[in-house]
């Protein structure tokens, strides 16, 4: 049963989250699942550029959170730690399918841009307006690492340092990814404005 009082405590206190994870407290995990599930889904959709497979990765992420919860010390926000766990699983998922690399730019390996899925783009499916359709096309064309930087900065409101910790990349690299991602999206908005 969902405990409202516990939910209030957990959402306002990272130490309470750390305690719950350390003790593998299922009630605390339930609160976390309820609170972060949609954001976790959104992050993984942006990273993978697809909707299929995301639910399985979400489940794997929470199982990993429960198993390795002791490594969260509660001294920083929970979100970056959660997304770091999800990111590692997403990288494994992409490697298994030999699709895009999240770190290609940094390690010098070539970027493999295989067709990520035969399903329609999740961004196109979620677009409700003409502007959104244009942005959806731009997002689908962006590499995963740029979409990741954008979602963490503008949807999760993370600082550059937090994004750098999640993406395991230097702060200037992360900033450059945001600039480039933003430039791609902006060009869509400017094109429309010029028409």
């Amino acid at each position, binding site marked *: 049963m969902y405990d409202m009082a516990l939910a209030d405590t957990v959402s306002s206190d990272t130490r309470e989250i750390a305690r719950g994870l350390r003790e593998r407290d*299922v009630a605390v995990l339930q609160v976390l699942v309820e609170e972060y599930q949609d954001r976790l*889904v959104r992050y993984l959709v942006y990273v993978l550029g697809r909707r299929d497979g995301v639910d399985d990765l979400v489940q794997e992420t929470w199982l990993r959170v429960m198993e390795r919860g002791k490594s969260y010390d509660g001294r920083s926000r929970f979100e970056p730690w959660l997304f770091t766990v999800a990111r590692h699983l997403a990288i494994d998922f992409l490697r298994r399918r030999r699709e895009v690399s999240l770190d290609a730019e940094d390690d010098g390996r070539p970027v493999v841009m295989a067709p990520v899925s035969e399903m329609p783009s999740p961004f196109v499916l979620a677009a409700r307006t003409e*502007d959104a359709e244009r942005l959806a096309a731009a997002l689908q064309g962006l590499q995963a690492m740029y979409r990741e930087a954008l979602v963490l*900065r503008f949807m999760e409101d993370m600082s550059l340092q937090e994004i750098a910790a999640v993406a395991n990349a230097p*702060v200037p690299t992360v900033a450059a990814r945001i600039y480039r991602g933003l430039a791609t999206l*902006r060009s869509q908005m400017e094109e429309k404005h010029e028409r």
Partner: protein
Amino acid sequence: MSGERHEDFEQRIDRSLAGAGTAEEQRLVEEHVRSCSACAEYLSASRRAVAGLKGFSFEAGPGLNARVMAAVKARAEEIEARRRWMRLSVVALALTVLGTFVDLQVGRWAAAFFGLPSVAVHHGLLALWIVPSFGLLVLFPLLPLLAAKRSREGRTI
């Protein structure tokens, strides 16, 4: 105004949106865009792009939370059961070591005290203490593995 200066302010706008700009840079940008339509449009397009991003909505599918929690509870029980068997294994190990110690150090003395043959005491300790606790020491770590295997087979069926 020169293109170079526009470029400079566009970079400041990017830095500001990315969270890399300083408060002073932010103030300069705000002041500048009031009098520069090109940079004002750049900022406006950037803000529209960010706002557009927020228009996409992705939510967990129906039943996902319940499925996740069922998996989390099952895994938590599995881990707890494994820990319980590990604790019992430690107890079995301690009993085995203690039994061996008693056999080697105290057995002969006990046999003399009770007037029993030392071989009989040795065999008694082996049969009633050391071998059973060693058996448990081997068995306990295997039980959770067998249970997990059976559970996996059950899921496959």
